[in-house]
């Protein structure tokens, strides 16, 4: 047994203007889950501590909270693994959400973004046109199984740095779930779905892999890349900066072996997009003053033919 100090964020939107913290000491083994420790504290010490929970086995997705500074499922995280040197475990509501009471947050923005992607199958034809159920081959189903494991706990959403500065971004879970329908052979709205998710800033994903902390190994980071590739394959909303960026990067690497910074900036923003280029110009000017501008043209690396051979062999969609 060990003395575990639960350092808990306390706040009630009905009565408080600013939050405070309570420290509750519980005598439990370090292997105790944070959820069990919270349940114990609520039962034995302070019945007013509020948090969401249901299944206690990482299936319901209710108990996401920030534990030791990283969002995790309280039922899947041991106190020992998140303990500070002084024996305390810091517990906060999920970041990127408005706190409601203690560790309970307003989940509405997360559900709103989920609802926008119409998370149900929309086949092109009526059920009556089919003599049997709509069948999916094991190979087609395999692609969807991992994403179907999503328990919508919002761990990824709360860790997403883009959501934290730009609430318009759909967030990792919604994009991963969009993939689940985009790649479902029974669905008839693939193009609409790709356009919708592009509009909801698919390409604003910052490639940071914070969503690789997914407790169910859905790995939204990889699914986001899959959806981006699907938009390029189907040529949906290709004039957005995201796809232009992806294509010009591939193009410069094929030409020179290197990512040519100058050409990538021009190609992404648009060579004739004067207003857009003027917006990046101040930083360019500051860099030029320091002699830090990337070269306008790059000399290809030695044996660049080999690099082009690789691109050609794999038929990368380079214009």
């Amino acid at each position: 047994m060990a003395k575990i100090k639960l350092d808990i964020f306390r706040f009630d939107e009905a009565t408080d203007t600013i939050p405070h913290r309570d420290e509750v000491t519980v005598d439990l083994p370090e292997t105790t889950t944070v959820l069990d420790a919270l349940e114990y504290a609520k039962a034995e010490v302070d019945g007013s501590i509020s948090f969401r929970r249901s299944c206690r086995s990482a299936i319901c997705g209710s108990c996401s909270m920030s534990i030791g500074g990283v969002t995790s499922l309280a039922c899947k995280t041991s106190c020992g693994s998140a303990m500070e040197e002084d024996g305390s475990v810091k517990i906060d509501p999920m970041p990127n959400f408005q706190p409601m009471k203690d560790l309970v947050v307003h989940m509405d923005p997360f559900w709103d973004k989920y609802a926008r992607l119409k998370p149900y199958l929309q086949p092109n034809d009526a059920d009556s046109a089919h003599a049997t159920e709509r069948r999916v081959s094991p190979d087609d189903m395999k692609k969807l199984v991992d994403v179907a494991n999503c328990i919508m706990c919002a761990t990824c959403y709360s860790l997403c740095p883009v959501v934290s500065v730009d609430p318009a971004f759909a967030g990792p879970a919604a994009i991963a779930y969009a993939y689940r329908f985009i790649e479902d052979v029974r669905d008839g709205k693939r193009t609409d779905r790709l356009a919708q998710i592009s509009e909801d800033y698919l390409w604003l994903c910052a490639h940071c892999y914070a969503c690789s902390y997914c407790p169910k190994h859905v790995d939204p980071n990889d699914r986001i890349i899959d959806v981006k590739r699907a938009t390029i394959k189907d040529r949906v909303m290709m004039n957005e900066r995201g796809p232009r960026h992806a294509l010009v990067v591939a193009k410069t690497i094929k030409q020179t072996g290197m990512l040519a910074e100058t050409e990538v900036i021009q190609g992404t923003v648009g060579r004739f997009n004067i207003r857009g280029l003027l917006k990046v110009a101040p930083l360019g000017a500051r860099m030029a003053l320091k002699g830090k501008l990337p070269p306008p043209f790059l000399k290809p690396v030695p044996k660049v033919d080999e690099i082009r051979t690789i691109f050609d062999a794999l038929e990368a969609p380079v214009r």
Partner: protein
Amino acid sequence: MSSTLLPEERALDAHVRTNSSKSKRYGFFPGCVAKESCKELFNSTMLLADKLGIELVELTAASCCGASVLNDTNRDVARVLNARTYAQAEALGLDDVITICSTCTGHMRAANKELRESEERMAHANAILGKFGANYKGSVTVRHLLWLLIDDIGLDALRSMVVRPLNGLKVAPFYGCHIIRPESVNGWESARHPHSLEDVIVALGGEAVDYAGKTRCCGFHVQLEKDGIASSMVGQNMRMAKDNGAEAVITPCPLCHLALDGYQADAAARWGRTDLPIFHLPQLVAYALGVPAEKLGLNKHLIDPREVMVSRDLIN
């Protein structure tokens, strides 16, 4: 530092370390940005290598690692491009490849993992490399210079090599995403609670500043996608560093350097002025090990680090 390498890499890395301690010769993959807009990073890395007594042999015919963007168009190209780079390293007898960019580290390691975990993918890559007579056997390990400093040089040895300690300069570490995440690809230290940069800062005589932004994203990869997005992410992180007492920031990633150094001015309107100078990892290590400050390209930074160095009596 408890190393948490993937099990299949442990034996290989032990082998590499034993060999490298004899020869101290490494394959060196500088990446695109260190050859383009952050030449000061390339130069200070070479100067640091001299001080450390190691030889960095540049893989001059290597291609871009894919920079996390190439995957958006085609899943296979980046893997095979990196296989070509590894084949070059193997042919030169340089199985231990060192990077100086977090993004290169993450994406080259991801490609290597994909190749080494699947005979099918390795055969697919080698079928293409075979068109120009190259072949990758799978013996390369990709590591960041930061890991080399701690695993091969060692923090005690590094401390003993310091001739100009940082006089308690308060330095905030900024890791950059791809040197720690995903953990399944990197796994050298905890992605949630890394401390290698802190360990290096302290070994150099500085004080490490803790703040929640140290493992967050700089926004570099989406700076062009939507106006103001990268400056918001930079401002948010630098605000936290400044509020926790930082006088400067150190990063192992030139992409983070470009974003943090470049966008603090734009972020000031929303986040207040922070003006934190951003050091490339090898710049600050090389300085402490005695490389003259004027050789480190500090004048190339948009936020000049020399002012804070003067205030700490590090330079005149």
